[in-house]
């Protein structure tokens, strides 16, 4: 097994699939020669040629629409939107056109597309480069939403996404690209979309998170352990479909939960998770489920970014609150 960081694992997933299936194509702004602004696609054009891996003009809606048109003609596009803030330009094509192709055509056509985009805070990037916009996608019927938290999952989930006949919005946390290395198998393997991962077992409280927040949650759990509190941490891995069964099983054990998201608090993924917990596990709860999230402001300039983002301290405080309820 090789040691890879998340970016290398993502690149490896694309390499494996470009090799396996000639219908897989990769395109976006600057993905070719330099391999993207984060080098996530580095070397792929050299290996697979300009016909398979190519730069597009600077136009996100057209990148999305090109993917839709090619998708209905049998290709399997991986379309990169350079930074998350630019998905607004492509939202019609991603969330309306691709996401409802199967519905509009009564199943005649589909959108076997992966829309990849980097996102996520804590890196002091320019405005609109790091926002957590997954909530917009989650509100959209017909598109899957996947956010890996580690290199192994990233590769396996991305391979699943590329093979999926439905559109997948695949969000890659900027702060995880180079954060650490882990064992990643060579060649093909998949991680199923729609299955959460219990990354740390515990019996007192469940902390539900995804993306970078999984790591912040684990750190919080380590801190809490010192005080004798055993927190279970669940990595959602995919937001659509959401693995509510794993969450409910955990709550049946711990009877308490909090949900952590980087995104602004209101009406986001955490709110949805809590609503589903209410529907499926209310009688197992000893306390209300709390959210730890960014405040409802625009994502801030770098100056206050660190304070704005959910931290170990804020997670620990929320855990204390549900334990003390």
């Amino acid at each position: 097994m090789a040691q890879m960081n998340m970016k290398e694992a993502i690149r490896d997933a694309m390499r494996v699939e470009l090799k396996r299936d000639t219908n897989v194509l990769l395109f976006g702004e600057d993905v070719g020669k330099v391999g993207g602004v984060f080098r996530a696609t580095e070397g792929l054009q050299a290996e697979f040629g300009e016909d398979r891996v190519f730069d597009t003009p600077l136009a996100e809606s057209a990148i999305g629409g090109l993917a839709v048109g090619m998708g209905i003609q049998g290709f399997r596009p991986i379309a990169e939107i350079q930074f998350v803030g630019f998905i607004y330009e492509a939202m019609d094509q991603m969330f309306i056109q691709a996401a409802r192709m199967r519905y509009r055509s009564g199943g005649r056509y589909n959108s076997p597309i992966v829309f990849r985009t980097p996102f996520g805070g804590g890196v002091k990037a320019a405005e609109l480069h790091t926002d957590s916009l997954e909530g917009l996608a989650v509100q959209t019927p017909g598109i899957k939403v996947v956010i890996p938290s580690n290199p192994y999952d990233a590769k396996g989930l991305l391979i699943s996404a590329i093979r999926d006949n439905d559109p997948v919005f695949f969000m890659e946390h900027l702060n995880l690209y180079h954060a650490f290395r882990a064992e990643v198998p060579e060649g093909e393997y998949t991680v199923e979309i729609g299955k959460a991962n219990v990354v740390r077992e515990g019996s007192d409280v469940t902390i539900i998170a995804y993306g970078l927040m999984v790591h912040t949650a684990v750190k919080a759990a380590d801190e809490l352990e010192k005080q004798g509190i055993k927190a279970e941490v669940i990595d959602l891995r995919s937001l659509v479909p959401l693995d509510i069964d794993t969450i409910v099983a955990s709550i049946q054990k711990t009877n308490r939960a909090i949900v952590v998201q980087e995104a602004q608090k209101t009406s986001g993924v955490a709110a949805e998770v809590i609503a589903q917990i209410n529907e499926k596990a209310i009688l197992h709860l000893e306390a209300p489920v709390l959210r730890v999230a960014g405040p409802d402001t625009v994502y801030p300039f770098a100056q206050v970014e660190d304070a704005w983002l959910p931290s170990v301290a804020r997670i620990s405080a929320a855990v204390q609150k549900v334990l003390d309820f």
Partner: protein
Amino acid sequence: MSKVLSKLPYEVQTEPVTPLSVLSLDGEVVNPDEMPELTDDQLKEIMYRMVFTRTWDDRAVNLGRQGRLGFYAPVSGQEAAMIGSEYALNKDDFICPGYRDIPQLVWHGLPLYQAFLYSRGHQHGGQIPEDVHVLMPQIIIGAQILHATGVAMAFKKKNEKRVAITYTGDGGSSEGDFYEGMNFAGAFKLPVIYVVQNNGYAITTPYAKQTAALSVAHKALAAGIKGVQVDGMDVLAVIKAVRDAAERGRNGEGATLIELLTYRYRAHSMADDTTKYRTKDEEAEWAPKDPLIRFGKYLESKGLWSEEDTARVKEEAKATVNEQIKKAEAVEKMTVEGLIDSMFETTPQHLEEQKADFQ
């Protein structure tokens, strides 16, 4: 002091163009060099389709008033643009239509009852048969322009000698997607034809308030693709222009923007009132340009068409529309379960659970 090296004009210049016509208003060939090659049978077939479509449009408006159709955008006046442009294609060319472009889909092979089902909001309307190469009509103005661009790129990559064609209106040519699509097609040299049916209005907004461009066709210049302007009430001119564009596409010469100057007689949809924004003078000016009258005169002069033919086709069209609307009405209603199952290839658990609420 630096010397002025040249006195070339540095301001980009463009000039107005003259739209291509083949037939005069009296149905005489005024531009024989541009006459498309067509057999007598083909000429009759084109007339048949135009008369059929006019009748179907009349019937559809009535069916709409009776509540038997849903959203429907009338097409009368635009038969030459719609039918001519489709007629110029091969069966395996791919059409990405806007909401008004139902005739092209039907003449390209979509069963009429499915077009009615689409209008009635039934999913089966969009379930295009395998051997028919079209998408269902697009509601978001401009989105289909990008789909055609993607389809064209697919053809190019697969080395297939096919072209994609897409339609929008003069209003649609103001959308960002229109520019993005043409620019991609220019940069990648794609076999795609962008047809703008300039019928003078976007709902109620007249062309003059839509853009200050000399013509829609001029917009091709910025994308580095070919742009042409055509008399869209002259079916022979339309066929010629689209055939040329398709040939260019097939030969690897890239994309073409075709502006078809046309006129819709009825309102934008069934909901608006033309008297609020159009004048009688304007309507009178367009009336003699009617594609059926003009092409009909040409065919009559060749002894290929008569009033009896028109009457016969009208009867046939009425009967077909009646039969097809009944067929559409007989299709089993959509269900919420079916709708839920159409969101993903395999319905995820949360949607399976939501289905239970509707059983």
